[in-house]
């Protein structure tokens, strides 16, 4: 049903509102039906590494959002000029250059943020979601939809990161965003933080539980 609308709209071109149904779908799909982590199973490596604390998950999500928007935009603007045989290299160069540029600027003007980010810079460059979106979307679409696609996917990625980090930090360290939330009384009664939650395997299990819940609720995702 939705696909038919899209084709009609395509035929009706060129005037299309900025937030047409199709464009809104670009933003909302990655949050649920086409989530890069839980449905496409991309970017798992960074999801495991940095979901120990909510704060880091937030910093990482914002950085990915930024890089994704600009990378998608640049690749989309260049899409008709990029030679097919070296396109992956071009994508990589754009992403890497952006990340380094951002890191340099942060280091000069927002030193504290850059300190938190330091470990993740490499992870952003190698994030398969960014490369995946450039290859699958930005190379074939106009700048505006590409930008929305970037925002949507980065948001979908950030959503999982923050949800997983929330539970890992809560159960693993008894904190949320670095603040203690579990009252001392409960510790006195014999409650202990679950150290296992801090280790990477639990992130995998937490993502698995998320996928389980998502699929039991979103029947579209269930394969025959």
């Amino acid at each position: 049903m939705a696909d038919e609308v899209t084709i009609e709209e395509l035929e009706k071109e060129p005037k299309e509102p900025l937030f047409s149904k199709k464009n809104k779908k670009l933003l909302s799909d990655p949050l649920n039906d086409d989530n890069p982590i839980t449905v496409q199973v991309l970017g798992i490596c960074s999801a495991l590494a940095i979901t120990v604390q909510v704060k880091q998950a937030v910093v990482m999500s914002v950085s990915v959002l930024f890089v994704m928007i600009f990378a998608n935009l640049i690749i989309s603007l260049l899409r008709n000029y990029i030679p097919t045989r070296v396109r992956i290299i071009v994508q990589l160069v754009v992403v890497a250059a952006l990340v380094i540029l951002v890191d340099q600027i942060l280091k000069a003007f927002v030193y504290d943020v850059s300190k938190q980010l330091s470990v993740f810079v490499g992870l952003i460059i190698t994030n398969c979601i960014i490369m995946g979106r450039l290859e699958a979307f930005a190379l074939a679409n106009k700048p505006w939809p590409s930008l929305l696609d970037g925002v949507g996917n980065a948001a979908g990625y950030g959503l999982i990161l923050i949800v997983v980090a929330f539970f890992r930090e809560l159960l693993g360290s008894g904190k949320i965003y670095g603040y203690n939330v579990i009252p001392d009384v409960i510790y006195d009664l014999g409650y202990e933080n679950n150290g296992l939650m801090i280790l990477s395997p639990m992130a995998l299990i937490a993502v698995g539980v998320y996928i389980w819940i998502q699929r039991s609720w979103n029947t579209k995702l269930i394969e025959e």
Partner: protein
Amino acid sequence: MDVNSNKYTFIFSAAMVVIVASVLAFAAESLKPFQKENVKNEKMQNILASCGIEVERDAVKPVYEKYIVEELMLDIKGNLIEKSEVAPFDVDVLREFKTGGQRNFPIFVCQLDNGEKIYVLPMIGKGLWGPIWGYAAVGSDFSTLVGATFDHKGETPGLGAEIRESFFQEPFKGKQIFGEDGDFMSVKVVKGGVDPSDLHGVDAISGGTITSNGVSEMLERTFKAYEPFLKSKMNS
């Protein structure tokens, strides 16, 4: 134009490399002074923090100049270097440590408002994933730690990374480098908890064994290097 011809591909790639390289080089060069300033201020901030003086990074410079009255440097044998080519503050202990071992050992002398002198010793060592470093502040008896700060490059968040937190650093206050009869004891990070009255041990971080061991090793090696200086001061 055929964007897939060999010629175009070559030209495109060459142009891309030149453009990206110049943009990055330009950005790195023009931002360098700001970045250096930040790193320098942070170093001052850390040195002051180990003496118990907390100050905002932007306002650190005048405070540093007020409290740090002297900067000294020892060579590898523990002798005071009278005239050095590099200022003690500018010695990059991390770089020395990475390239064949530390050769210069700076000391920052901090004079508190009550006239007490504190000797701040920079430390550098290995954690699980990368370097760890910090500052140990030794009081005027040349044995008791007034404070210690630690930092790291990329230790595991929630585990080894906790060495940056105050709950780990606080217990270092009052610990002693030398035993009662003047033996070298260092301060160790002990797994499984220590008696708070133990003058040479603090509690390790559970789950962060390798980082904790790295801190122990770093403390011992640093204090060993400064031992001649501390001993000679103690006896004079």
